[in-house]
């Protein structure tokens, strides 16, 4: 178990409309720590020095809640593919390295404090139509309608989206198409969700535009950074479903 001596250059911003700046701290972290645990060490140090700890979001720390948003050395959730910040271990960094930590950047995700951004725009996209409005029953009822293996698989893959927002953070257009498309595909491929697809897709796209997310130009930065490996094919599905709802819908 060896220790790493790191320089953590982190974004500090007191509140929403402050201009903010970088601060660099020396941190000694064990290589088996997760990135968040390394930040815990830094914060304990700051508290001991009677300084303001670095605000960052976290909840599950097992890669399923999607709250641990931050950009590490220019990549949302850091350098490891298909890995959230909480699952990223310090052994992937080098001894003596300077690690730059920034909040997600997008005007629809305003910074609240340090690394914490307001991602409630995602909640409102879900509220606008990312659900099935009837009760579909208990778990056994899930098997009442047979679903093609291939479709079930694709739906499940899309359902893996944890709503973390890394796609928006990575996108040079600040677009939320990967997130929204994952939700639309997840529900739309299942017979229970298909029924409301037209309404869903119209409402979610309108909400996405209203929240101030940019327009997708198929750069693919989102797919490359998504910790759950959501694919660009989902965006094509969303475009298809949207076109269908416009041209053949009610």
């Amino acid at each position, binding site marked *: 178990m060896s220790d790493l001596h790191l320089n953590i250059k982190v974004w500090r911003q007191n509140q929403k409309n402050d201009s903010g700046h970088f601060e660099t701290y020396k941190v000694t972290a064990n290589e088996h720590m997760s990135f968040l645990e390394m930040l815990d060490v830094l914060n304990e140090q700051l508290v001991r020095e009677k300084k303001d700890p670095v605000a960052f979001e976290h909840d599950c720390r097992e890669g399923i809640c999607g709250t641990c948003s931050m950009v590490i050395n220019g990549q949302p959730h850091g350098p490891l593919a298909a890995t959230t910040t909480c699952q990223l271990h310090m052994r992937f960094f080098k001894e003596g390295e300077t690690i730059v930590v920034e909040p997600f950047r997008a005007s629809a995700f305003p910074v609240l404090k340090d690394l914490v951004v307001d991602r409630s725009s995602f909640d409102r996209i879900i509220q606008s139509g990312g659900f099935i409005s009837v009760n579909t029953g208990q778990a056994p009822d899930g098997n009442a309608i047979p679903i093609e293996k291939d479709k079930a698989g694709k739906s499940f893959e899309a359902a893996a989206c944890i709503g973390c927002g890394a796609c928006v953070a990575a996108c040079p257009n600040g677009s939320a198409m990967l997130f929204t498309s994952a939700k639309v595909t997840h529900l739309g491929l299942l017979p229970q969700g298909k029924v409301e697809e037209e309404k869903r897709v119209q409402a979610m796209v309108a909400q996405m535009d209203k929240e101030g997310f940019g327009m997708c130009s198929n750069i693919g930065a989102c797919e*490359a950074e998504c910790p759950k490996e959501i694919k660009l094919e989902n965006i094509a599905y969303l475009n298809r479903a949207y076109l269908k709802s416009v041209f053949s819908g009610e």
Partner: protein
Amino acid sequence: MQWLVQFFSSGIGKKVLMSLTGLFLILFLIVHLIGNLQLLKDDGGQAFNLYADFMVHNPLIKTISYGLYFFILLHAVLGLLIAAYNRKLKGQKYAVSNSQKTTWASKNMALLGILILAFIFLHMGDFWFKMKFTDQLNLQTYDGVTVKDLYARVSIAYQELWIVVAYLVGLFALGFHLWHGFQSAFQTLGLNHKKYTPTIKGLGKIYSLVIPLAYAIIPIYHYFFMK
């Protein structure tokens, strides 16, 4: 009609417009190339001049060409508006950015587009405008038919090194723009499937190499071999 207005005011609707106009322009590039390869013929410009005369007088071609001008403008103006809108929404820049697995072209479509637009102004100002709206071109008679000698104008233009270089820069930008744009147009229309997407991507790469190269032959050939 309100549904249509609503569609085009959505983000996806605007991108669909970009995709459709882009695909139309991709088709145009082929037709334009085929016609203009006649500039390489060693007949003193007869075939090309007759063809050019036909293109500016045939009513059907005329109608299509107005559509073409409109689509070029729509694609350019909307593209720039979208780029400006997106840039504003992206907010503050990252101190370090390390974006993975993305092409340079995909992130610089607006810049490439501006270069192409500048090129189109130069190109149309020099040939199309002079052909259609001025009497600057000499006349040539072939078998009793008198037409404007656009060929001579083109040939003279391509003796100027700076024009040849400007064309090559424009075509270079076009190649990069197509490198991303060709396949992106299909994705925006929702056409992405493992059955045909690899073919579309392959075709897009071939197209964005071959078409600009073929165009480039014309000024280069004139500069070096048709003094």
